[in-house]
């Protein structure tokens, strides 16, 4: 079930439970303006101790290194707490930030949410 009503509509589009996974849907343009909001959302989700945290980025049109830093922080939390972080649906302009910073290989990146949830 999606509940996007309580979130700022610009970047956080919703949070869903899918079995043992929590799916965080993001959208819009992620930069210095909203990375604290994103960081706080991750902290909120950590309290739920998800086994799998799926970040669906299909609707993210731009992300700078502030957003990337937040995802690196989330990956570190997941590794330290026995969880898995899976990223879904990176458009090329977002994927290129991972490539430039040579961080593509440390993340599990999937084309679709179904693929991320099935593996």
């Amino acid at each position, binding site marked *: 079930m999606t509940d996007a009503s309580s979130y700022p509509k610009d970047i956080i589009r919703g949070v869903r439970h899918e079995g043992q996974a929590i799916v965080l849907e993001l959208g819009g*343009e992620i*930069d*210095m*303006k909203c990375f604290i909001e994103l960081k706080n959302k991750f902290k909120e989700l950590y309290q739920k101790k998800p086994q799998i945290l799926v970040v669906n980025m299909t609707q993210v049109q*731009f992300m*700078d*290194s*502030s957003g*990337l*830093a*937040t995802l*690196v*922080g989330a990956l*570190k939390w997941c590794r330290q707490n026995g969880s898995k972080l899976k990223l879904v649906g990176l458009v*090329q*302009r977002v994927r*290129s*930030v991972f490539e*430039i*910073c*040579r*961080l593509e290989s*440390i993340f599990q990146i999937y084309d679709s949410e179904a693929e991320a949830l099935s593996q």
Partner: protein
Amino acid sequence: MNIDTKEKESSTNTQIELRICANPDYLCVARTAVRQVAQAFGFSEDKGESITLAVVEALTNVIRHSYDGPCDKPIIVKLNKINYGNENKPALEIVIRDFGKQVDPESIKGRDLADIRPGGVGVHVINSVMDEIDFSRADDCGMQLRMVKYIN
């Protein structure tokens, strides 16, 4: 990646100038402007987006480090189409000027990417995207970053 003095002086007539407050709320304005300029100057969408990313990283660094956080002080972004280099090739020149702290330009470096941790990669992004970059102290106060990207 230093740009020599002669080249620094080569473009004195600014074609496009954007002045924003050092506030993350206005990064979206800079993004929109740079995307449009890159497109107008003949860059592909992918390259235009990379240039936009480099500018956002530079502006974010100004807000974070030169001004120690969001404030009402100005950041000036100048964009010019120039002929540059030994072969006089068409290029986009972007100059970002702030009025904050001055630091030794040599001290502005990206960190080691092998150390996987959040943050500190903005300069690395700028270096990777642009063909040439040059940080310098501005005449009176603040810093200036000049970046060049060849159009073809």
